[in-house]
C-alpha cells in the first residue's frame, strides 16, 4: 500500500495543455475518486499515474518515491480499464494468471492467488471460459480479478462500471466498496457519475478543464461546494441557482431575488452586487420557510420515494422542489414555496463560495 503525491503536474499534447499545475496528496489506503465532465482530463491523469502517458511537468510520487521515469511495470500498481481489456484468446484462468507470470512468482503461488481472487469475485465456475462467453458484469469481475492477483500497492480504475446496465452498476458498486473494505489498498477511481463518486469515495477530486475545482470528502462537497461548478455538479436532482442582488444598508445587507421577498443578512464578505444563491431541491419545500414566495406548479415528476415538482416563480424562473411524495399537486396549482436561510449557498460574481453571516433574528 502506498500514498500518492502530485506536485505541479501538467500534461501537454503539443501546444494543447490538458492538465495544469495539479497538486494532490492522497493518503495511504484512501479511496480517491476523480470526477468531472467528459474531456476534463480524468483518464489522462490516471494514465499518467499508471505510467501509460508521460508527465509533461511536475512530479508524481508513489509511496514517497518519484516515479516520473519509472516504467508502468515497475510502479507496483494495477489498472482496470473501461473496456475491460481482457485478452480475448485466453481463458479466464489464463487472463488472471498472465500478469503474474511476468514476476518472480512461483507456480503454486500463482495458483493460490488466482483461486483466491476467483473466490472473492465469485467467478470460480467461469474459469475455463473465454471472455466472449461472459456477460458484461462477469467480464468486469475478471478484469478486477486480474488486478487483485497482482496484490498491487495502488489500484487504478477508469470508469469500470460505465459499460454496465443500471442494476448491475449498483451491484458492482457495492461489491467494489466491500472489496475496498477488505483489501484497504489505496484506490484511485475515475468516473463521471457523481452517484458513484459520492457513494464510494473517502475523498473526491472534482476536475474541470484539467484543474481541480474542489478536493474533499463527499460531505464537504455536498454541504460546502466551493464554487458554482461543484454546486451544480454534485447532487441529484441538480441544485437550484438564483440570481440575486445585494444592497448594503445600515445594520446589514438586503438581498433581493426576483420572485421572492427581500431578506436581510448580517454580513456579506464581498463588495459584489451580483450574487448567485443556490439551494438544493431537498431544502425547498411547498409551504412556509424562513423565506416564502409564491409559485405555480409546472410539472410533477413522481419518482416513488419522492416527487419532483417544477415550480415557476412570478419572475418566470423554475425551481426544482423535492417533495416527500405523500402530497398530490397537479399542474397549474398555485403554491407557496419556502426555504430556510441556513440552507442557502452564496457565490460571488466569479462563482466562488462566500460565507455569509446570517441575521440572527431572522434565522430563527
Amino acid at each position, binding site marked *: 500500500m502506498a500514498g500518492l503525491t502530485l506536485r505541479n503536474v501538467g500534461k501537454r499534447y503539443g501546444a494543447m495543455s490538458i492538465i495544469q499545475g495539479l497538486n494532490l496528496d492522497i493518503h495511504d489506503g484512501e479511496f480517491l475518486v476523480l470526477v468531472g465532465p467528459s474531456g476534463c482530463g480524468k483518464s489522462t491523469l490516471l494514465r499518467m499515474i499508471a505510467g501509460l502517458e508521460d508527465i509533461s511537468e511536475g512530479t508524481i510520487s508513489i509511496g514517497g518515491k518519484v516515479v516520473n521515469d519509472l516504467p508502468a511495470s515497475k510502479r507496483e500498481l494495477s489498472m482496470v480499464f473501461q473496456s475491460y481489456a481482457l485478452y480475448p484468446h485466453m481463458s479466464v484462468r489464463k487472463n488472471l494468471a*498472465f500478469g503474474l507470470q*511476468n514476476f518472480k512468482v512461483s507456480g503454486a503461488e500463482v495458483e493460490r492467488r488466482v483461486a483466491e481472487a476467483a473466490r472473492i469475485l465469485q467467478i470460480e465456475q467461469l474459469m475455463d471460459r473465454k471472455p466472449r462467453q461472459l456477460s458484461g458484469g462477469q467480464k468486469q469481475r475478471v478484469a478486477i480479478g486480474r488486478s487483485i492477483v497482482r496484490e498491487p500497492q495502488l489500484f487504478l480504475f477508469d470508469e469500470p462500471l460505465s459499460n454496465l446496465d443500471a442494476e448491475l452498476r449498483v451491484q458492482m458498486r457495492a461489491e467494489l466498496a466491500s472489496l475496498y473494505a477488505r483489501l484497504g489498498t489505496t484506490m484511485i477511481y475515475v468516473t463521471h457519475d457523481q452517484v458513484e463518486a459520492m457513494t464510494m469515495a473517502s475523498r473526491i477530486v472534482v476536475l474541470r478543464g484539467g484543474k481541480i475545482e474542489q478536493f474533499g470528502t463527499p460531505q464537504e462537497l455536498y454541504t460546502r461546494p466551493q464554487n458554482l461548478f461543484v454546486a451544480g455538479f454534485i447532487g441529484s436532482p441538480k441544485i437550484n441557482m438564483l440570481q440575486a442582488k445585494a444592497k448594503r444598508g445600515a445594520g446589514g445587507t438586503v438581498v433581493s431575488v426576483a420572485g421572492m421577498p427581500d431578506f436581510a443578512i448580517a454580513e456579506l464578505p464581498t463588495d459584489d452586487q451580483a450574487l448567485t444563491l443556490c439551494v438544493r431541491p431537498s431544502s425547498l419545500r411547498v409551504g412556509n420557510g424562513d423565506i416564502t414566495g409564491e409559485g405555480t406548479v409546472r410539472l410533477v415528476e413522481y419518482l416513488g420515494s419522492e416527487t419532483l415538482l417544477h415550480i415557476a416563480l412570478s419572475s418566470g424562473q423554475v425551481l426544482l422542489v423535492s417533495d416527500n411524495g405523500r402530497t398530490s399537486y397537479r399542474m397549474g396549482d398555485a403554491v407557496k414555496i419556502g426555504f430556510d436561510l441556513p440552507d442557502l449557498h452564496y457565490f460571488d460574481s466569479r462563482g466562488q463560495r462566500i460565507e455569509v453571516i446570517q441575521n440572527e433574528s431572522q434565522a430563527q
Partner: protein
Amino acid sequence: MKRFFARNAPAYVFLLPWLIGFFLLALGPILASLYLSFTRYDMVSAPRWIGWGNYEYMFTRDRRFWKALEVTFTYVALAVPARLIMALGVAMLLDKGLRTIGLYRAIFYLPSLLGASIAIAILWRQLFAADGVVNQVLAMVGIQGASWITDPDTSLYTLVVLAMWQFGSPMLIFLAGLRGIPRDLYEAAEIDGTPRWRQFTRITLPLLAPVIFFNLVLQTIDSFKTFSSAFIISNGTGAPADSLLFYTVYLFNEAFKFFRMGYASALAWFLLVIIATFTAIAFFTSKYWVHYENERD
C-alpha cells in the same frame, strides 16, 4: 424460383459482363484444358485422345518434371515464410512509428508493386550478376562474391530474396490486422510488466492468427504460381542447370516452345491439385491454431 429471379434480376444484369467473361474466358478454357490433358496436341493437327498417357509419363519418366517440383517446393518453403516475416516486420514498424501518415504506406508499398514487375526482375538480374552491385559492395569489404545468378547453388536464393521484397500486399493486410488489436490490451500487459517479446508471442501473434492464416494461404498459392521473375532471370529456360526450373517455367516451355499442349495441360492440372491440397490442409488445420474473435462454441 421465379420470385427469386424477379427479385434479383437487377443484380444479374450487373453481374452479366462478369458472367460472360467468366464463362467465355475462364471456365471455357479451364474445361478445354482438362480435356486436352488427356490428349496429344501440337496445335497443328487435331488433339488425339491418349487417356492417362500424359500423367503416366509425368510421374514415371519425366525427370525434369520432378526437378521442377523440387525447385518449386524449395522456393515455396523458403519464400513464403521469408516474405511473411518481412511483411509482418514492416507492418509492425509502420504500426508503431508512422501511425498517422498514409503517404508512408504508399511509399513502402511501391517497391513491392515494382517487385512483381518485369523491370525489377531485370534490375535484380543486374544487381546479382557476377559484376553486379552486390558483388561490388562485397568487394569493398574484401569479399569475393559468387556469380549469384549463374551459379546453380545460389541462383534460387536470389529469387527468394527478391520474393522477400514483394512483401507489399501481405504487409498491408498485416497492418490492418495489427490496427484491429485494441491498444489497451498492450497497455494492460505493459502495466503487468509483460516484456515486449512476450507481448508479441502471447498477444500479437495469437490475435493475428486469422490474418496470418489468410496471408499464408494466399502467398502459398501465389508462390506456387511464380513465373515472371524466374522466367526472366533464367532467360526463359530454367538455367543454370535447371536450378531455376520453376514448375510454371517448365509448363510454359512445354506449351509454347515445344507445343506439347496436351502435356502442358496435364502439368497445369497437377499444379491445381497441389495448390488445392495445400489450401485444404491449411483450412483443416487452422482450427488448431487460429483464434477467431467471433467464433461460437
